[in-house]
């Protein structure tokens, strides 16, 4: 028995783990929760950039496994698709195992199958102690070259591209096969000496003692006009004849230097026939000055004004007399800081980052002094703006405002910065920035400033790593620029993870309020998730701008406006209630557009339980409440927005509101409420939208208010249901709920109890109404069960509805104007059985509702009786859904 007990003890954890897995499966089947974000992990640690030793992996056929850890942890995840941006360096399989094939840089990206805009990446810097390949890079063409064409007297500098550079031991060696055609020094400076063809050979030795070579042909034909591009002269006159190969200097070969001070320079034009070239003439202070041969081509390497030298790089110096350009022997070369800049024989080498002064001196010559900055240039980097992350939200388009708010200050433009620098100690300032368009400019720090008329234009910014070993540059194109302020740059996704005890930053919310307060005619563009602070924090805020209003366009870029910290009562809303008073000063504005925003009213996604839905029913709030009385024409357009976790997603009492390509999911009450008061016009249009998982109805449309004035004219709603709308609100008939009278809206406890009772009775009646032959048009049989897809209920609440279906309406007092796409939707009668209502409830109901005749329900039942959704069917935020939302089915 002892042994048996021991075996059981060993089995206990397995049983526990099995039970947890089984529970997880049951729960997942019960509640569908979508993935919001994820990070890539390796060996339990999050990774975004990794340096890999190629040999370690290739010798053991080892793979690097990336494991996505997603948020929320209970999300239903059907997998990830993986891809590499450089298959020659690394590939990745469907399980996230990365195989390395060569040295270099590669970005591996994983994308959620369930939501195509949820992605994460990791950049690999693959190194080795062995050189894999070498190639020759031309500074002139800024490309890897396989042949070079030159003219006699021309010079050009090339650079060895070593992959991987860290494997290089010593200096790469350059050699010319025929010095009569071209010569080449150890800095890679080629000088064409005569016509013909010869081979340039580059030889590099790695740390393992192996050598790699690369040879390219150099073809020299014809002659340049000048023998050298820069001429140094002393005195008042300079004869340029010795420097000319052909042609003459415009204005004469003898140039007057008297107007120049020592150290100043002038440009002369040399002409031969139709050909011209520039020759720079520099006046020297002394007759004998020390210079460095080839320095004019070395400018590109970092000499001249940009006195940078990459750490680890070596330069061979050939001191010359600048005037005669003859070599000088015995020049003393000194460095002010040998730890930074070391001098060895006639070469200097940058040993560490820092500054050092280099002095070349010899008696009888004016010394040459130059300050050199030794820095590590980046050979790999990415930009903070990534085109790969531009397919965001339901609209799959990223939008940028032409201004941004950084650290609470609104600045003109957007900062573009280099990130993920490699090597890790790279100098973040060694970058140049340029734009390809007249609509924008960029400064030396990467601040891109847009002109007023840049809205709607494309602007491409190119960032180049200075002095890098591979001349890497990256570009980013702003495709959708709007007049607005970007909020939330630099905060990543700003994820709230309750489980880990991590709170989000509220800064974006305060920034958004600041933009709303300071800038009247500008849009808000979210570049991160925006969370409302707690109620206490909100109430401590002074001023009247505590919530976002519908007075400007809002571009969500697929991020959330999350009110989980704030929503605390049924009547609370995430946005400021849309009222006429807000529009004072906006008389010219006819409406606003809210695009690509996830409106998250209350509950954290991670606890998507029925308990929370019950909580939502009590305190979930209605994030959007519109009640424009005088400005009924003011239109609030929601485009590609997703609404989730609310009691109801929207209550419209007056105004014009349109939904195009939106998703409404997870509401604990009626998803959409259209309830106009008698005197206000109220128009709602729904186009290509998806509705899912509403505990009660998808929508409720009623007219009129309480108390009802006798014979008062009623302004009826207008409701439009066009395109292809999808309702995933299937309920077993014995489980349906209407919840047409929400609880928590009255202060009177007795009335509240009565209303709750009435509501429950009506729910019971609705279920009874599904028994037998009643409401056959709504019922749908699948298997043993009977279902109903609860759509938009038009009910005579306070006032009878007079339908005007797909017909023009002369006046708003004529009745409810309903426009529907009859091919994909139907208006079906819904009759309530009042048997189980009871006398008291019946009397109470009759004061506001007319239940004696059939009310109408709008649902996605097509003319042939079929539906475009099925009971039990769900959808993902994948391409198919995106196509549906765009009406591209």
């Amino acid at each position, binding site marked *: 028995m002892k042994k048996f007990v021991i*075996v059981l*003890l060993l089995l206990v*954890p397995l049983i526990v783990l099995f039970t*947890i897995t*089984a529970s997880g499966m049951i*729960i997942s089947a019960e509640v569908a929760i979508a993935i919001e974000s994820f990070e890539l992990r390796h060996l339990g640690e999050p990774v975004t950039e990794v340096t890999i030793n190629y040999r370690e992996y290739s010798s053991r056929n080892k793979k690097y496994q990336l494991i996505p850890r997603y948020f929320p942890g209970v999300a239903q995840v059907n997998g990830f698709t993986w891809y590499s941006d450089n298959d020659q360096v690394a590939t990745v399989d469907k399980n996230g195992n990365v195989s390395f094939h060569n040295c270099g840089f590669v970005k591996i990206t994983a994308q959620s199958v369930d939501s195509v805009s949820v992605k994460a990446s990791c950049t690999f810097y693959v190194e080795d102690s062995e050189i894999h390949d070498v190639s020759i890079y031309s500074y002139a063409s800024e490309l890897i070259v396989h042949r070079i064409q030159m003219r006699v007297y021309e010079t050009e500098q090339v650079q060895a591209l070593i992959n991987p550079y860290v494997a290089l031991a010593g200096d790469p060696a350059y050699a010319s096969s025929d010095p009569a055609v071209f010569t080449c020094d150890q800095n890679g400076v080629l000088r064409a000496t005569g016509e013909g063809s010869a081979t340039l050979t580059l030889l590099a030795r790695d740390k393992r003692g192996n050598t790699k070579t690369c040879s390219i042909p150099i073809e020299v034909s014809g002659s340049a006009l000048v023998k050298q591009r820069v001429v140094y002269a002393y005195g008042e006159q300079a004869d340029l004849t010795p420097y000319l190969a052909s042609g003459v200097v415009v204005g004469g070969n003898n140039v007057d230097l008297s107007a120049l001070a020592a150290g100043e320079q002038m440009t002369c034009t040399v002409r031969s026939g139709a050909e011209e070239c520039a020759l720079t003439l520099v006046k020297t202070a002394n007759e004998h000055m020390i210079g460095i041969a080839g320095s004019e081509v070395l400018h590109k390497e970092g000499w001249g004004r940009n006195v940078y030298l990459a750490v680890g790089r070596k330069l061979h110096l050939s001191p010359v007399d600048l005037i005669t350009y003859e070599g000088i022997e015995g020049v003393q070369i000194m460095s002010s800081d040998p730890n930074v800049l070391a001098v060895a024989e006639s070469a200097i080498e940058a040993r560490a980052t820092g500054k050092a002064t280099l002095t070349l001196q010899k008696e009888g010559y004016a010394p040459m002094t130059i300050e050199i900055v030794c820095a590590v240039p980046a050979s790999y980097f990415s930009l903070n703006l990534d085109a790969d992350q531009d397919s965001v939200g339901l609209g799959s388009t990223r939008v940028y405002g032409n201004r941004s708010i950084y650290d609470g200050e609104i600045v003109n433009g957007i900062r573009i910065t280099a990130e993920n620098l490699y090597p890790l100690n790279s100098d973040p300032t060694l970058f140049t920035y340029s734009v390809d368009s007249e609509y924008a400019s960029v400064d030396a720090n990467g601040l891109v400033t847009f002109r007023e008329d840049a809205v709607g234009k494309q602007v491409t910014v190119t960032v180049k790593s200075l002095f890098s070993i591979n001349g890497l540059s990256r570009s980013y194109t702003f495709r959708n620029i709007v007049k607005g302020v970007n909020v939330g740059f630099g905060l990543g996704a700003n994820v709230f993870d309750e489980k880990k005890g991590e709170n989000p930053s509220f800064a974006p919310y305060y920034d958004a309020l600041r933009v709303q307060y300071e800038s009247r005619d500008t849009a808000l563009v979210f570049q991160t998730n925006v969370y409302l602070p707690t109620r206490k924090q909100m109430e401590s805020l002074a001023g009247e701008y505590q919530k976002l209003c519908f007075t400007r366009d809002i571009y969500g870029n697929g991020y959330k406006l999350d009110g989980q910290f704030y929503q605390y009562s049924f009547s609370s809303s995430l946005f400021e209630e849309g009222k006429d008073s807000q529009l004072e000063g906006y008389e010219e504005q006819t409406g606003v557009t809210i695009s690509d925003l996830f409106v998250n009213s209350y509950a954290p996604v991670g606890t998507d*339980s029925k308990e929370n839905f019950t909580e939502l029913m009590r305190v979930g709030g209605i994030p959007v409440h519109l009640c424009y009385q005088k400005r009924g024409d003011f239109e609030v357009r929601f485009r590609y927005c997703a609404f989730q976790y609310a009691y109801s997603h929207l209550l419209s009492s007056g105004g014009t509101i349109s939904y195009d390509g939106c998703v409404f999911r997870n509401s604990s009450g009626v998803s959409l409420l259209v309830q106009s008061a008698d005197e206000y016009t109220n128009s709602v249009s729904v186009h290509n939208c998806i509705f899912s998982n509403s505990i009660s109805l998808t929508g409720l449309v009623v007219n009129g208010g309480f108390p009802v004035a006798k014979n008062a004219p009623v302004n009826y709603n207008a409701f439009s249901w066009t395109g292809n709308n999808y309702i995933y609100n299937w309920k077993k008939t014995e489980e349906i709920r209407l919840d047409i009278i929400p609880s928590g809206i009255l202060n009177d406890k007795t009335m509240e109890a009565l209303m709750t009772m009435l509501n429950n009775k009506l729910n019971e009646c609705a279920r009874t109404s599904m028994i037998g032959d009643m409401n056959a048009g709504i019922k749908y049989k699948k298997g043993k069960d009977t279902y109903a897809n609860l759509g938009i209920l038009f009910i005579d609440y306070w006032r009878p509805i007079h339908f005007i279906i797909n017909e023009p309406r002369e006046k708003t007092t004529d009745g409810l104007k309903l426009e529907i796409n009859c091919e994909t939707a139907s208006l079906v009668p819904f009759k309530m059985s009042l048997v189980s209502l009871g006398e008291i409830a019946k009397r109470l109901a009759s004061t506001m509702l007319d239940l004696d005749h059939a009310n109408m329900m709008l649902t996605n039942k097509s003319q042939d009786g079929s539906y475009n959704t099925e009971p039990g069917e769900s959808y993902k935020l994948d391409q198919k859904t995106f196509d549906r939302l765009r009406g591209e089915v």
Partner: protein
Amino acid sequence: MRSYWTLFRLELKARFGARGMGNPVFTVIKTLIFLALVLLVYMAYIFGVKQLIEMFYLYDMSTEFLVLFIAISQVLLVLFGISSVIKNLFRSGDNELLMRFPVSAVSVFAAKISIFVLYQVIFTVLVELPVFIMFGITTAQGWSYYALLPVVLVFSIILPLAISNLLAIPVMQISSRTKNMFALSLLISVIMVAAGFAIYMNVIQGVVDYMKEEAMSFFSKKTMVQVSKASKYIYPSNWFAYMLIGKWRLGASLLSFLVVSLFAGGAVLLNKKLYFSTILRDIEGSGATFTKVTKNKMRSPMWATFRREFLDIFRSSNYSFQYLCMAVAAPVMVFCCNRLASSMGENTIGAVIVPALALMVMMIFCAIILSFAASSVSREGENFYLTKIVPLSYRTQVLIKLALYMAVSTLSLLVTAVLIWVTGQIEVRYAFEAAGIAFLTSVAITCFAIKLDIKRPQFAVGGDGELSVGSLSTFVTLFIGFTVSVLYGLFGMVGIFLWGTSMTFGILVGVSGGLALLAALWLMIGLNKRYERITQR
């Protein structure tokens, strides 16, 4: 030589031959269930070790893994070896008989040690060999690794065997002195079970974390460095490992051979010299268990029965392990298991389900502890007739047993609840609510178990009168207990997610209360009649 074979056959028969006792169908079922469970554990072991090998390989600690694995195997073999040597060689029930037979001590020793070697071979082939092969495949070892594997396996059998033999005699002497120190024995058992379980949980946690994120969770980075350093000094396991992987192969092989030869030679010499005399001394001294004379005390019949019931369990190493040791170690085991379950549960479902997990783990351990109640009558053994003449009704006697079981399990549950609350695993409210539900279910399981035993007792009348093998009632109780625990766990986790903790626990309290009431009624109604019908065959 002939006498050796005869003795060897005798040993085999004694261990594996048909006993001719009990219900053969039940014996077969029991054996099959046991084998199935062992197979399950074995599969889990192979799977877990494979993950560990991959994990150590990924962290460049393959050699360290091999050294640690060999060392742990050797230590385990030595520990089990000492116990087996004492039990089978020195304190075997037939020693007294065999000494009177015309067989030499060497033949007796050889026959008995052969069985022991057979066990070692089976252990080595089943437990060590697959690991060595998996290691070889994972780390892409060459032919020399596989060629030397049999040598290392032989060394792995001989060395622990030799060490066990060397240590058995001193350990025997210590155990003779501590034979009557029941509390100490219990304490040692509790520490070993709790520590063993904690280590096991850590290993499982490590495997789970590795499978989830390839994370090395049971070694910190600092520990990894220390393990790496320490593994160089774990002799002779490191030599065995070096031999296999070809690191300093010749030196490692020679040293390994030397060490194994030295210990084997020592063991042979020692046994040759002391085996016979040790057996003789042990047989002569075995009757002197209780030497202290205690006074008779007058106690009430109820208290005396309660005390006797407790002492019966306390003074039996088997019962004490099955019941008291489990009950005392349960809080630590629940804590460790809950920690693993919580981390896994939080990551897969969410922190919200932790109370249900804690409840399930508590109930599983309660089921193990309370399965003991299914032998409450059977354990009376040949003294059963006394229960029919003591001045207490059957009902009272059963209630006294029930009270003892419930007292121990309640105490265990309370300590568990406090522990998981104090360590922050769950909120105080949920800790005690879970303990409450587990208590109610325990009442049901205990009543059910006692009833089963009353219906079909199985008295042990031979040997030392202890019921060392499980009865059908025990297995049924365990099965029911585990099933209920898992169902509660499933319902709890899903329920908490769907309806919240309060409602779910509320339902479980109701169900458990109902079960407890039903089980109590089932036990009590007609108890006297049923008890009266029990006869000792």
